[in-house]
């Protein structure tokens, strides 16, 4: 009897501790009040754990900037998680009260964390280290700002554009430089002409990149998938359904999505025998970093790059990238702030770009530059780029640079993870089950709107 009551008493105590512990261990108690941060002196001693970034397995763009930081702050120890950002481990770390000191988060995932109050507002950090948000691209800044307060500093800038297999277009009687991408009927026609092989395709016409690129198609059709403040899901807007249905219809000439995907799986996407080099694809919207991949893998490919267009004929791109943030419970915010500054300032980027230029020259490959979120850095980097040997790349880079000013981004939303899941799941269902797009999207909209409202509480 005694043994038993002791046991239950112990159990209750443990449970109580866990209940209370959950709150104390978690970060939720704070309302986000950034601590006052002062600039870290160069002899500052600190130890930083950086989550969501790699060093050992990173490229020269990453290493150069980190090395430069080390030189500026030799007594700061930096350790990397050597992994990309993953939501589950990050959440778990926060819940256990063991957060990283600095975190690298994709900008379109910031919303959930900001709403939960686990990221520090960066006002005092920006001031202490003299970071001017004005040097970053507007759309990037919008992604990291909620109610006028910045919670992260943009790192890279990824835009999405049309990448076109020049020869495929020309063979079909289409002019890749002048094709009207605002005319969706023309796109559909071209798709039919460009697809080869029918149900067992040997070349795909236009890859709509569904469901991931649904936001791009939707904004091109006039209605972004979510309102600018990230609070109202607009998935139930007929324009979004129209965009989804249109993009989905591009799978038809290849025999439907399954045979489309089966063929796509065979591509050597990152290799020398990629789908452009092997004439397996006519066109697709893609992030600009793929240009770098092509430049290294198959520099002699004949590619035309064009901006994505709205149906009104305006150039547009869907931009995102990652960013650096400081968890509210970070141990050493001054050092973290210095780290962030050092990773995103112009000189850091210039050094990184220089390193890339050197590597490219050594390997006799084109130097494709680096698309930072920092407009000033970009201007200098791209002014110094010499791509004469590769005219296709020279033109492509110019297109990317131009379109960066016409960027739309997913605004931060309190339920950003669920929202992304919602539109992808809706896209999947329409593509795979053939369910009516408007029906699926309306359901998804209702559900995710509830999530957003709840998260915003």
């Amino acid at each position, binding site marked *: 009897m005694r043994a038993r009551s002791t046991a239950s008493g112990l*159990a209750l105590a443990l449970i109580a501790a866990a209940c209370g512990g959950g709150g104390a261990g978690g970060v939720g108690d704070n309302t986000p009040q950034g601590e006052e941060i002062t600039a870290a002196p160069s002899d500052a001693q600190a130890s930083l754990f950086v989550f969501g970034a790699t060093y050992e397995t990173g490229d020269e763009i990453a290493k150069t900037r980190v090395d430069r930081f080390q030189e500026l702050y030799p007594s700061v120890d930096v350790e990397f998680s050597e992994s990309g950002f993953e939501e*589950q481990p990050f959440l778990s770390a926060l819940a256990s009260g063991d957060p990283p000191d600095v975190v690298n988060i994709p900008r379109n995932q910031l919303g959930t964390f900001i709403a939960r109050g686990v990221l520090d507002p960066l006002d005092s950090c920006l001031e202490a280290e003299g970071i001017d948000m004005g040097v970053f691209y507007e759309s990037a800044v919008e992604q990291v700002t909620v109610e006028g307060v910045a919670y992260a500093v943009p790192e890279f800038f990824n835009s999405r554009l049309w990448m076109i297999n020049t020869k495929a277009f020309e063979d079909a009687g289409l002019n890749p430089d002048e094709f009207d991408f605002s005319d969706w009927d023309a796109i559909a026609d071209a798709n039919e002409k460009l697809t080869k092989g029918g149900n067992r395709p040997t070349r795909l016409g236009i890859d709509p990149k569904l469901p991931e690129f649904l936001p791009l198609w939707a904004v091109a059709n006039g209605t972004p998938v979510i309102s600018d403040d990230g609070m109202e899901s607009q998935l139930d807007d007929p324009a979004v359904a129209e965009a989804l249905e249109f993009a989905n219809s591009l799978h038809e000439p290849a025999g439907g999505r399954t045979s489309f995907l089966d063929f796509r799986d065979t591509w050597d996407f990152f290799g020398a025998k990629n789908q452009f080099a092997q004439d397996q694809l006519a066109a697709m919207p893609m992030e600009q970093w793929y240009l770098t991949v092509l430049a290294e893998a198959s520099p002699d490919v004949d590619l035309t790059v064009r901006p994505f267009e709205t149906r009104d004929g305006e150039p547009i791109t869907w931009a995102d990238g990652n960013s650096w943030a400081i968890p509210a419970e970070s141990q050493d915010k001054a050092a973290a702030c210095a780290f962030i500054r050092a990773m995103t300032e112009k000189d850091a980027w210039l050094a990184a770009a220089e390193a890339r230029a050197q590597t490219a020259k050594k390997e006799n490959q084109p130097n494709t530059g680096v698309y930072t979120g920092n407009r000033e850095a970009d201007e200098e980097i791209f002014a110094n780029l010499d791509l004469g040997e590769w005219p296709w790349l020279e033109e492509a880079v110019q297109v990317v640079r131009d379109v960066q000013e016409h960027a739309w981004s997913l605004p931060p939303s309190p339920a950003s993870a669920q929202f992304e899941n919602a539109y992808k*799941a809706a896209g999947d269902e329409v593509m795979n089950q053939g369910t009516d797009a408007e029906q699926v999207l309306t359901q998804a909209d209702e559900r995710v709107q509830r999530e957003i409202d709840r998260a915003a509480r």
Partner: protein
Amino acid sequence: MSANTGLTNQQREFRWAMVFMSPWIVGFLVFMAGPMLWSLWLSFTDYDPLRANTAFVGLDNYRELLVDPEVRTSLWNTVFFTVFYVPGTIASGLALALLLQRVGRAVGFFRTAFYLPNITPAVAVGALFLLLLNGRDGLVNQALRAIGLPGPSWLNDPAWIKPGVILMMLWSVGSTVIIYLAALQNVPRDLYEAAEVDGAGAWHKFRYITLPMISGAIFFTLIINTIASLQLFTEVYAMFFGGQESGAAGQAALFYVIYLFRNAFEFFAMGYASALAWVLFVVIGIITVIQVKTSKRWVYYEGD
């Protein structure tokens, strides 16, 4: 003895029994009973470990469940799988056990061979089948094409993803075979002999002697496999979810516990996830009770 301790033998036995039982008691209270109640309570809240303010939302989570399209999808997927997998594994397990029964001395070797898939870690099974079911080059499709059948796109075609999963799980039928084999070997020989004297054929013997005599084992595997398949997680999660884009599999491979896991640990919506868990518990309970109640009609016990 009792003079030494002032307790009766019975009391001392009781105490010591408690001492020996204490590990389980502690474990039960802390890791089972407590969590059960806690999870029930959570299901009535909107608990998120990172938020300070947890609200009691009553039946909201349960109402949400009813209209959530992904709940419908995942329930459908799970039930579909169970309905095909459980009878499939019982039938094939039985067939193979009957096959093995005629083997003689070498049965040990075959038992070992049949059981190999069961000791393969579930993640490795998932990885293995990612390779075997590859639409273009996987072994399964190579074999199908060799006999003139078209090889479907097991991993990309949403219509074939579940059949592919069923195939994968059927590969582990070995443990069921071993159970049935043991049960078959326990059927008394004289029953068969008596039937032969009366002129019974093979089918007759099977239907009226074998089946009833092993019905206990069949019943057991029915219950165990149903409960397990309603909670299928590891192999499918390893193949289609986690760090990667789920792609075509997205909705077709979304099993109930996977959806639960996502809500709990990827969205941190633990209140909602707890509601999902309790619904599963109730569903499993109901199905098990039904199976047990209807078992009286067809399960034969030695003592009857």
